[in-house]
């Protein structure tokens, strides 16, 4: 079970006054009825829930700034929220926190195709960013599977990735600038042309800081011309290790497909039952997608075919039409839904060096046997970002604890093999206490100093990212020095 810190009793006792002050500051934007704040009590890590003190839905940078200054002066904790699709508990509130949600900030502010840039309010969904430039032949590259729902502000806070980041990079590589509201209400523009500004790369450290340094209200994003075309192939193997070795060989050969996706047998069986994509009967399969003009696609696929055949696949399935291409992707795209029908699951997100794939897959199989819980693998293999899904039964006493323990062991294995705890979902509350596995005390201290610089009172999303024991001295300093004494 994940521990949550005790709420600040000083804040809870001032609840009515705080809500009144919020209402004064932003009439019509405050939600404090417990029946309605319930909608904000969790994100996509649904096993953990806590209703906030109140929710406020501002419409502009100026309104966010006004709210932040107020909360700062009252020493009330704040949890920023985009669409609430975090899988790590990043946007889960605490009882003493005001949630500042950006769901009303969805405007497009500027489209500049000649600068290959779009500027939007941070509550706009990822897909609606690409949607706004589609008619110009452009797209926004990072494409998390949650792109229909998740907001750009959440993407920036989590430095989200997607299936196509092997070629285009993750959010931080496609972010040119943000408007950031600091906890004390001050507003600052970070970044600039090419994402660069004089001085330290503040934009670089804000991206991926999980809503702990400020609230992003506007973002300038790099947009790219849409490629002429794309085509996937499916390669099936009789052993997961062979599929892993094939991924490393493709990378080594110098071909960089836009995506290399991996699915193992349990996942293939689940998706077949769910949507009947017609995948071959095999232990593991890869979906490799390349982009470009027809010539370019043919050239790249010929190379990939040569490499794959060296590994003696059961099948090398090419797509000769849009419909065949769609069927190749069908099972992969419905994988999470299909796994959901098997039972409850925990989705891990560890990343490993690509050449360690065969070993780590074997290690996960061992652990899964030892814990007696099924693990299924579906992930972005090209960049080593694994998504082992642990299947359990939430109604069976002790099963969640066992699944969490297995998850922790798998992540330890990833770190041991030279990888990390999370490749794209973020630390949140979920992996917070495992941070000690990856980082020594000075490493964490250096990160916490950054938060000290942006948010000296540790009011912003403070119970996340850092192990509670490591952040305790800083968080408790605030409790011992409430606003009226400060």
């Amino acid at each position, binding site marked *: 079970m994940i521990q949550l810190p005790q709420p600040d009793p000083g804040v809870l006792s001032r609840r009515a006054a705080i809500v009144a002050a919020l209402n004064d500051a932003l009439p019509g934007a405050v939600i404090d009825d417990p029946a309605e704040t319930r909608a904000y009590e969790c994100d996509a890590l649904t096993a953990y829930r806590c209703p906030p003190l109140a929710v406020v839905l501002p419409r502009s940078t100026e309104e966010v700034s006004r709210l932040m200054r107020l909360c700062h002066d009252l020493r009330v904790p704040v949890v920023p929220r985009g669409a609430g699709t975090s899988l790590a508990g990043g946007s889960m509130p605490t009882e003493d926190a005001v949630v500042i949600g950006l769901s009303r900030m969805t405007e497009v502010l500027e489209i500049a*195709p*000649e*600068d*290959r840039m779009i500027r939007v309010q941070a509550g706009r969904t990822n897909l609606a960013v690409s949607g706004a430039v589609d008619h110009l*032949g452009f797209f926004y590259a990072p494409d998390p599977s949650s792109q229909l729902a998740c907001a750009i502000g959440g993407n920036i806070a*989590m*430095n989200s*990735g997607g299936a196509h980041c092997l070629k285009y*990079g993750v959010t*931080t590589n496609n972010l040119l600038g943000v408007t950031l509201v600091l906890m004390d209400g001050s507003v600052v523009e970070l970044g*600039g*042309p*090419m994402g*660069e500004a*004089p*001085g*330290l*790369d*503040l*934009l*670089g*450290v804000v991206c*991926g*800081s999980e809503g702990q340094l400020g609230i992003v209200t506007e973002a300038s994003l790099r947009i790219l*011309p849409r*490629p*002429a075309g794309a085509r996937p192939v499916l390669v099936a193997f009789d052993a997961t290790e062979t599929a892993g070795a094939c991924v*490393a060989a493709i990378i080594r050969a*110098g*071909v*960089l497909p836009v995506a290399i996706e991996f699915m193992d047998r349990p996942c293939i069986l689940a998706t077949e039952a769910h949507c009947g994509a017609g995948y071959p009967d095999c232990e593991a399969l890869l979906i490799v997608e390349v982009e*470009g*003009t027809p*010539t*370019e696609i043919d*050239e790249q696929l010929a190379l990939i075919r040569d490499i794959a055949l060296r590994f003696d696949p059961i099948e090398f399935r090419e797509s000769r039409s849009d419909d065949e291409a769609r069927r190749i992707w069908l099972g992969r795209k419905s994988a999470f839904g299909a796994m959901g029908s098997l039972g409850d699951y925990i989705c891990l997100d560890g*990343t490993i*060096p*690509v050449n360690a794939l065969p070993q780590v897959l074997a290690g996960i199989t061992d652990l899964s046997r030892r814990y007696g819980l099924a693990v299924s693998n579906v992930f972005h293999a090209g960049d080593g*970002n694994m998504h082992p899904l642990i299947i359990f039964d939430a109604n069976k006493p002790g099963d969640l604890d066992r699944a969490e323990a297995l998850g922790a062991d798998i992540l330890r294995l990833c770190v041991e093999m*030279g*990888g*990390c705890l*999370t*490749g*794209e*979902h973020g*630390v949140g509350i979920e992996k917070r206490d495992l941070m000690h596995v*990856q*980082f*020594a005390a000075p*490493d*964490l201290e*250096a990160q916490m*100093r*950054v*938060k*000290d*610089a942006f948010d000296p009172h540790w009011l912003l999303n403070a119970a996340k*990212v850092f192990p509670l024991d490591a952040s305790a001295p800083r968080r408790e300093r605030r409790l011992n020095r409430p606003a009226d004494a400060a």
Partner: protein
Amino acid sequence: MRPETEADLAQIIREARAPLSITGGATRRWPGEGAAAPLDTRGLTGITLYEPEALTLTVRAGTPLAVVEDTLRAEGQMLGFEPAGAPGSTIGGVAATNAAGPRRLQLGAARDALLGIRMIDGEGNIIRNGGRVMKNVTGYDLVKLMAGSRGRLGVLTELTFRTAPIPPARVTLSLPDLDAAAAIPALTLALGGAWDVSGAAWLPGRGALLRLEGLAGSVAERAASLSARLAALGRVEQAEDDPWPLLHAVGRDPALETWRILCRPSQAPAILANLPQPLSLDWGGALIHVALPAGSAPDLPPFDGHARRVTGAAPGLIPATDPVTRRLNTELRARFDPRGIFEGCD
């Protein structure tokens, strides 16, 4: 002082009582840098891990850039961000200045290829951040913060980069008749279509330059289609030589000072209108280098971006940094280097 190990380096910092200027090859200094006593990183050398099949290389900071490049080339790989180098450049300097060449358009700058670091802060603590995998959001990204920090927060001691395959084929198209301002629409056109351009620049005497890389058949196909589209803007040729290294060799006239201007490409024509012929344009017009008489400053219209004097005696930055950004820079420096051991400028 030229320590040979990370531990010795940490010791030197702990015992330091006066400011130090962290120094690699001293090939990328800006005006005002390098005044304090040098702390030489060139004793920390060696590639500690190279896994071509995982596209990763780990190297100590004092290792010459040339050694890194030779090692990668032997395996058909490269630093994708194409850093400029002068004799003596170290890989630590490349990271600390966030170096980037023409391919920044496609693969980003040093910051984007840097996967992990080891560093020493102003109190002598050894700090690790990032790692050696391509996707990593575990904790704050101090890797980005340190890339381009120019020695103001700490000493980088070891770096892990994502490497890139060397593309098998390359073609450079040029539009020799275009002056700098006229080159912008040509570069913009090329970057706005699906040609996957890996360099978009302008050089005096060479005109607009566009680079296409990849597999041979695809490069030929893209070159033909792009040439056809560009023809309306001027005569298009295919370059016989490799002009891209010339972009690095600008601004050598000692009587003049070089300014580096970063802007939105759409604003470049207005900026160029008030300047003498630039030394070069890169990144589709987002980067302008121009030489001006010593002590002068460019006459710039209002624009998004900034201009910096990168050679000469006195620091120069337009516009001045806003107060909140300045405060955050100052706060971060105070926390990483509370005793003010590391020299630095804005």
